[in-house]
């Protein structure tokens, strides 16, 4: 009979006082392991692999904007040395060709940028060049977007509008097989 009496005395509730402590432990663990570092970068779509070299000799030379980066991280743009700070401006001029010059692109949708680097080029330089070329296109898209839709170009705008803009000024970069002069 003693048994029943102890049962009666026991309360039916489980003591939840330590629950908070357990939750705290878990909380602290997740606080410590959390990294809210977001990953950003330059998004690139590589061309699919084919064994044949793409033939760019058929293209008119006026439509091709060749950018070469050598192992000393120097730029040769259309046969002339160029400073990287000028690259964006010159690229925009080449693509849009506001003065209808004979030696620049016929139309924005015919312009092709040909990028070639050396195996000894530093990655930072390569990315900087790529960044400038992309920035040139973004500026052109921005202008066109303001003209057509009255808003600045952004990746959040409706896909249909993005398509219209990219249809008029497509982003075409052809990357040639790099030379090998300066690899360590």
């Amino acid at each position, binding site marked *: 009979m003693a048994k029943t009496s102890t049962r009666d005395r026991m309360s039916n509730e489980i003591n939840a006082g330590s629950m908070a402590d357990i939750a705290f432990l878990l909380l602290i663990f997740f606080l410590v*392991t959390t990294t809210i570092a977001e*990953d950003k*970068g330059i998004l690139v779509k590589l061309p*699919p692999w084919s064994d044949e070299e793409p033939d760019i000799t058929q293209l008119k030379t006026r439509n091709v904007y060749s950018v070469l980066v050598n192992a000393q991280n120097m730029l040769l743009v259309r046969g002339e040395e160029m400073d990287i700070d000028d690259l964006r401006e010159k690229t925009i001029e080449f693509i849009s060709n506001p003065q209808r010059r004979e030696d620049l692109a016929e139309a924005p949708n015919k312009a092709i940028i040909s990028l070639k680097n050396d195996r*000894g080029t530093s990655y930072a330089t390569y990315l*900087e060049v790529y960044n400038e070329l992309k920035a040139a296109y*973004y500026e052109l898209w921005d202008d066109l977007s303001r003209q057509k839709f009255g808003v600045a170009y952004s990746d959040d705008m409706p896909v249909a509008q993005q398509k219209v803009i990219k249809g008029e000024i497509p982003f075409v970069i052809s990357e040639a097989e790099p030379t090998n002069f300066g*690899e360590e």
Partner: protein
Amino acid sequence: MSKFQKKRGKAKPAISTASLPDIIFMLLFFFMVVTVLRDAELKVKVTTPYATELTKLEEKSLVNYLYIGRPEKKYQPIYGTRPRLQLGDAFATVDDIPLFLEKHKVKVPENKRARITSSLRVDGEVTMGIVQDVKIKLRKSGQLKVNYSAKKKPQ
């Protein structure tokens, strides 16, 4: 008057802590959801370069990471000082990339596989040679969406 006195006498001074665990759990769940556990220990030194035209990577589960850089000091006696590729937790060669991509791919639901992005986290001082080899291997493996990881340029 006697009414008030009676009530006062009965009231217990203790505040109920029963809802405390609930509050803590709410915080806990918040952190559990935003947490990304660091899955790989970096064995190569990677300082990504600066850029301006950045795109944010959206879904973490659709991203696989390839690290390229010089081995950390403690690994240099074994692996040398030339830039190396790191896949997941270990040093790797370019030939390991297809298997690495495939292993990541099977974990992703089929309808999302087209959106898988490879994040190339490359040290700025590395030369393009090894990056080029990796790029060619990625193209041969059909992994065409690539993100060159970079930091926002401070103004």
